[in-house]
């Protein structure tokens, strides 16, 4: 059971997480201020006939005439209260625009992650340790999967499974069938990396005395792997899975573009192309928050998965 010392450690981690979010906000603010061009022009669109008075009014309305330091502090204050501001382009709160698009991205990420974990665990459990041919085959498959660009995999799946053989819908139709191809495209490269690590860990685990003991008790090959050795692989697998969840939001930009799916990736791309600064800040902060939260969760899960982490306190 987690103890008080664990709670202290997690509290310290949480404090670091807050510092990290503050850093992300600061970096984002600094970078967006480097973007050339007047934000007012972005807000007003390409209207040459806007009077200077109106421009000044809009500038004051968004607080863009304040000193940089004031703008920075206001951003931090707003973020601390959970306010992401108003989108330049949509003229509505960033939160609302993001919230609408969260679901499709979460669906895609969840389906892809599930598929990737299933494939990787399947490979780790089923590839026999003594067959050199099977091991070489899987190493090769994993290497190719890792090197597959997700968006190209998406294009291939569309070209052949949708356009030629009509097995899946070409465009997003809101059904589970239209989720299959994007999820596969996202999952395969992740499954490759995950399988590489899992199989390496599985090999280490299978050489341990506890496996020999289990075998001596008469446990079959599959039972040893699923019942004893697989647990051993949980820590690195969890670390890696956390890392993927953090990167899925970025990865969804390409996949959503390829499949014409709505989602946060599309929002990010549109926001960046239109220089919609509050929207970009919103997406970046959301991504950073997810990354930080997932890492915190991964950290906390070690306490449950691996009792040694609790004892050693490292």
């Amino acid at each position, binding site marked *: 059971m987690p103890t008080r010392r664990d709670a202290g450690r997690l509290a310290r981690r949480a404090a670091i997480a807050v510092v*990290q979010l503050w850093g*992300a906000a600061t970096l*984002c603010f600094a970078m967006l201020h480097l973007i050339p061009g007047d934000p007012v022009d972005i807000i007003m669109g390409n209207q040459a006939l806007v009077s200077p008075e109106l421009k000044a009014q809009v500038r004051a309305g968004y607080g863009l005439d304040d000193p940089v330091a004031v703008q920075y502090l206001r951003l931090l204050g707003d973020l601390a209260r959970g306010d992401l501001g108003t989108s330049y382009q949509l003229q509505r709160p960033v939160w609302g625009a993001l919230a609408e698009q969260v679901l499709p991205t979460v669906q895609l990420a969840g389906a892809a992650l599930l598929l990737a974990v299933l494939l990787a665990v399947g490979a780790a459990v089923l590839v026999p340790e003594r067959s050199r041919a099977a091991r070489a085959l899987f190493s090769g498959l994993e290497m190719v999967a890792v090197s597959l660009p997700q968006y190209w995999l998406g294009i*291939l799946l569309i070209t052949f499974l949708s356009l030629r053989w009509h097995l899946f819908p070409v465009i997003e139709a809101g059904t589970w069938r239209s989720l299959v191809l994007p999820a596969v495209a996202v999952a395969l490269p992740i499954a490759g990396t995950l399988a590489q690590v899992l199989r390496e860990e599985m090999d280490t685990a299978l050489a341990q005395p506890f496996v020999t003991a289990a075998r001596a008790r008469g446990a079959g090959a599959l039972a040893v792997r699923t019942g004893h050795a697989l647990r051993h692989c949980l820590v690195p697998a969890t670390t890696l899975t956390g890392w993927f969840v953090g990167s899925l939001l970025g*990865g969804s930009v390409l996949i959503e573009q390829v499949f014409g799916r709505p989602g946060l990736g599309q929002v990010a791309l549109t926001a960046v192309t239109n220089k919609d600064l509050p929207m970009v800040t919103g997406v970046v902060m959301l991504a950073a928050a997810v990354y930080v939260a997932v890492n915190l969760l991964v950290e906390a899960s070690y306490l449950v998965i691996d009792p040694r982490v609790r004892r050693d306190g490292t």
Partner: protein
Amino acid sequence: MGRRLAVSAAALVILAVVGAALWPQLLTGHDPNATDPLASFRPPGAGHWFGTDQLGRDLFARAVYGARHSLRIAAGATLVALLVAVPVSVLAALGGRFADSVVSRVLDVLLSFPALLLALVVVTIAGRGELSLLLAIGLADMPGYARLLRSRLLVVRNAGYVEAATGLGVGPWTSLWRHILPNAAGPLLVTATLGLGVAVIFASGLSFLGLGAQPPTPEWGAMLAEGRSTLAVAWWAGVFPGLLITVTAVAVTILGRDLRNRFGIGSVRP
């Protein structure tokens, strides 16, 4: 035996891609941008190995000429990442506790940005094009390299030979340059080789989004973006550029792992 074969094949692939980047005219007689309305949408065959696109441009020629752009961005980005990572990690590892904690936190923050978003923002600041794409990928890759080198530097700086050099009166900078960096750099170079493959994929992805090389430049990712609209009639336009990206990335990975095994460095995780 199988491993040797794989490494040789990978080396051949890399040689071919580098060759295509340096002397594309040796591999194809076609002009990558020459249009021919009478030869549009030809499937892959004897005259056009990778087929032709809507404008009748030879896709094999475009792929060959595209190697230059894809390689240049990936290699340049990795170089930029390394050039920034070295001073940053030296500052962290040898600049005292305060510098270390500040640099490490900044690296943490950079790592918490999804690489693609970071690159998107950099491209927005610097404008579209190959150079800003190169900088964007370099910046996104830098924190990983800096972290790795920092942890190596922390080990090496306490090594006996460094202490001995200091005892013999070697100055700190000379010691850093002659003794510490060369001994710490091994894993970094191996990781950078593996990272080069990732950079090829990443660069093509950003070009696919229209952020890098602009049409009609024959960059692999940009070619996929152009071919995407005609997939229903010309599957080949969506297949070959991606195949080249994947094959190049796999070859680089095989070589990188071979290097890693040769130097006896343990597995390097992302």
